[in-house]
């Protein structure tokens, strides 16, 4: 598989060559800053008067896969949507605490939510391609960002599809409707679409729960490939999946982050009794 970090492409570059030359420039910069990729301190989250998250602290380092597990309704998806402020769309939500992405307080009033969401991409539970062609789906993000150059767009579409391991399957039918693809292909298309905006972080909200086992395996392989270039935070209801693909795991229970640590550690020697009960199948 061809892998390319397309993250730090400068948008003013009008040529595909210039586009590719700028790769990796920003990465060294990030290292020097010494920030955690995502740092959450004392997070409380409310839907109206109902509290959904209680005093969550977490530090996610750059690259790799962080999995969030826990029973339904434990707040793991809510937590995920805190990170790209998708909860803003739900009326009556409220948040306390501090959430920083790469050193920036994303709930600061001065934060540009649109910019944040370009930096923190998201893949949803149900594959949700637009009712447009495959090409137009991928090109959507760059286009709304003002990219009009056809050559650049084609380059981005190809790289993004290659990045999501979908290129070989669709390269001859880029202008056919995306909704004609299979569920697994649609989900990889959604991943490609997210990659096209050059995010630093990819949030995935149970990305394989609506997909058959073989397609699930392809997406799991893809996640492992992508995590060398991107920081991936994935919510999953499937513990085996978390164990297979993640480097770190967080266990949520009733809005609390019960335990957070190395996946190997959490699944073999959990520190908290509740974690042990959950992963050994005593509840959930």
């Amino acid at each position, binding site marked *: 598989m061809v892998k390319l970090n397309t993250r730090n492409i400068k948008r003013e570059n009008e040529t595909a060559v210039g586009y590719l030359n700028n790769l990796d420039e920003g990465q060294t910069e990030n290292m020097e800053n010494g920030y955690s990729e995502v740092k959450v301190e004392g997070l409380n989250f409310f839907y109206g008067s109902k509290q959904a998250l209680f005093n969550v602290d977490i530090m996610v380092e750059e690259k790799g896969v962080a999995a969030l597990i826990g029973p339904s309704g434990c707040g793991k998806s809510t937590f995920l949507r805190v990170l790209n402020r998708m909860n803003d769309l739900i009326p009556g939500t409220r948040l306390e605490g501090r959430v920083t992405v790469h050193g920036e307080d994303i709930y600061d009033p001065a934060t540009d939510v649109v910019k944040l*969401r370009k930096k923190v991409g998201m893949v*949803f539970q149900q594959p*949700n*391609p*637009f009712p447009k062609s495959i090409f137009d789906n991928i090109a*959507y*993000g760059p*286009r*709304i960002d003002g990219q009009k150059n056809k050559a650049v767009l084609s380059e981005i579409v190809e790289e993004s599809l290659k990045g999501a391991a979908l290129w070989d399957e669709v390269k001859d039918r880029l202008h056919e409707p995306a909704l004609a693809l299979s569920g697994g292909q649609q989900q990889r298309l959604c991943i490609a679409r997210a990659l096209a905006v050059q995010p630093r972080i990819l949030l995935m909200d149970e990305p394989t729960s609506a997909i058959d086992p073989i397609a699930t395996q392809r997406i799991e392989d893809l996640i492992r490939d992508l995590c060398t270039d991107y920081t991936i935070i994935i919510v999953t209801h499937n513990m085996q999946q978390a164990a297979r693909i993640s480097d770190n795991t967080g266990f949520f229970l009733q809005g609390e982050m019960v335990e957070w640590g190395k996946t190997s550690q959490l699944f073999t020697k959990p520190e908290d009794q509740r974690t042990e009960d959950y992963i050994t199948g005593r509840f959930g």
Partner: protein
Amino acid sequence: MHSISEKVMKIIFLICGLAIIFFLAGILFTLLSNSWPALREMGLAPFITPGRWNPGAYGEPTYSLFNMIYGTFMVTVGALVFAVPIGVAAAAYLAEIAAPWERELFKPIVEVLAGIPSVVLGFFGLVVIAPLISRIFYIPSGITALNGAILVGIMALPTIITLAEDAITAVPKEYRNASLALGGTRWQTIWKVTVPAAFSGITAASLLGMGRAIGETMTVLMVTGNMIAWPESFLDSVRTLSANIAIDIGDVVFNSIHFHALFVAGLLLFAITFLVNLLADILIHRNPEVNK
């Protein structure tokens, strides 16, 4: 006992349902049978080829509806050019942006607009729009095709707003979320994802609004001047098919060719609106978003 009353109720409701079909068939039959004497005498061609409408001419009356078909077309298209952008934008606002209380306030207003008697709207055209047009374009009279187009556009607005809003609301929220999560602004999301996804529903809404506009009689009759001559532009007077019927029906000789010729005009109107509504219906049912 119980099952008998059940059956009786079922039959009563069935009869009510069938009545609709009966009315439609009856109207169509009336139109056809009363047009027939004129069509038998002259065929369809003289009605739809260029010429004059002069049924009262001594010796050689002419019955060309050509200029009026064109007049109807002008008023209808003009109305759509005016009403579709406003209607779709208003629908997008209601469906995507408006706070719940704004929606609560706005929707009854749209319904009131739909309920205004067309005669009253005609007054508005005469005393407000007409002077405005004459002042803006420096013409002696604002009684023009443009005036009719604007008023009919206003009349089509409630249909377009209501149906387009339904179509936009029916777009799955997953599309919006996808766009917003990609860093799309609300504005970009509405115009590049939601409205295009609702496109066939919006087109259907426009066509149904158009169906309304084509048949509209009273308002148009009051504000377009009803000249039979070929209109050169929107600033000329026009006569529409429906206005023509309303004007002539008062003093036509019963069962004369002139009388039957008016039914031909009615038949044409019926055919046009039927086709437009059919097209709208096909579009609505082809639209997977609305069907969900």
